């Protein structure tokens, strides 16, 4: 989502688009978009390791007056089936919402719903 004079927009990123990217490319893409002031809804969320790497990369990118970090919330991972557990298939994360922390604020979250608020007047520059 970008808030400019003419309104606000959201970017829904498909699972297919995300699957085409390596972990590193995915994180670069997300951080680049969020730094522009966009809010992304990822159809297919990040794995815990990717989330940790995103936090690390975010910290490296923080600039006092322009980028204070990210707000990130995801719904819990799908439970793997018995066969997936035996085969060691990683659990798949579900939908994830990521945006600039100066624009997006999480109000509450449980296993089924993420409630957020846009902070008025603090959209993308």
């Amino acid at each position, binding site marked *: 989502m970008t808030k400019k004079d003419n309104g606000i927009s959201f970017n829904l990123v498909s699972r297919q688009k995300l699957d085409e990217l390596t972990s590193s490319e995915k994180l670069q893409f997300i951080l680049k978009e969020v730094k522009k002031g966009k809010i992304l809804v990822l159809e297919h969320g990040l*794995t*815990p*390791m990717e*989330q*940790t790497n995103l*936090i*690390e990369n*975010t*910290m*490296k990118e*923080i600039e*006092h007056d322009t980028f*204070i*970090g*990210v*707000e*990130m*919330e*995801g719904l*819990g*991972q799908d439970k793997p089936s018995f066969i997936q557990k035996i085969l060691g298939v*990683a659990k798949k994360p579900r939908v994830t919402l990521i945006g600039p*922390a*100066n624009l997006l604020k*999480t109000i*509450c*979250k*449980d*296993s089924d719903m993420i409630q957020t608020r846009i902070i008025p007047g603090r959209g993308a520059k």
Partner: protein
Amino acid sequence: MGLFGKGTLASILQRIFGKKHAKIGIYGPPNVGKTTLANRILRDWTGDIMGSVSEIPHETRRAKWKRNVKVENGGSSLLMDIVDTPGIATKVDFKDFMNTWGLTRDEAKRRAKEATEGVIESIKWLEDIDGVLLVMDSTQDPFTQVNVTILGNLEARNLPVLIAANKIDMEESSPATLKSAFPQHPVIPISALTGYNADNLYTTMVNHFSKKRKKKRR
């Protein structure tokens, strides 16, 4: 002296099957009481302390550690290297330090910069630890992204996690909420400030972190 000479059956079994030395990281978001807990553990078992505490978030901005802390539980014990890590956050806004805590602009910017470096250092330490004492504030909503991310990361590495539901001395605390939120991990209610239930935490630490596990490296 028993059938097996010195030591109890528990300590003998620990020597055979379990760890005797483990590097334990104290993790969590800012201001949940990580350093207060580290100080409590060290004071109880070594007479020392780990570092200063403050109401201002990100007081600990560099990891600190204490080697060879021997925690005993009846006949068994575990020698631990305790690592007190900076709080993990997804955002650091220097204006919060000015507006909420009255720091000057320069102080706030310096603290924010050091805080971001601290988060990175905490994450890097994950590669080098054997288990995690994850501290959560039992007065707050447990489903924060930082809690969920840390737990998911540790589960992916197959590292043992013990959740310390801290601040149970406060009226609004609800350790039961933490227990129901993360039923897959042991949750020990504690007040790091008063020491309430610390003995239970130590017993669980020795038992939980002594277990042998195959660590996954990423």
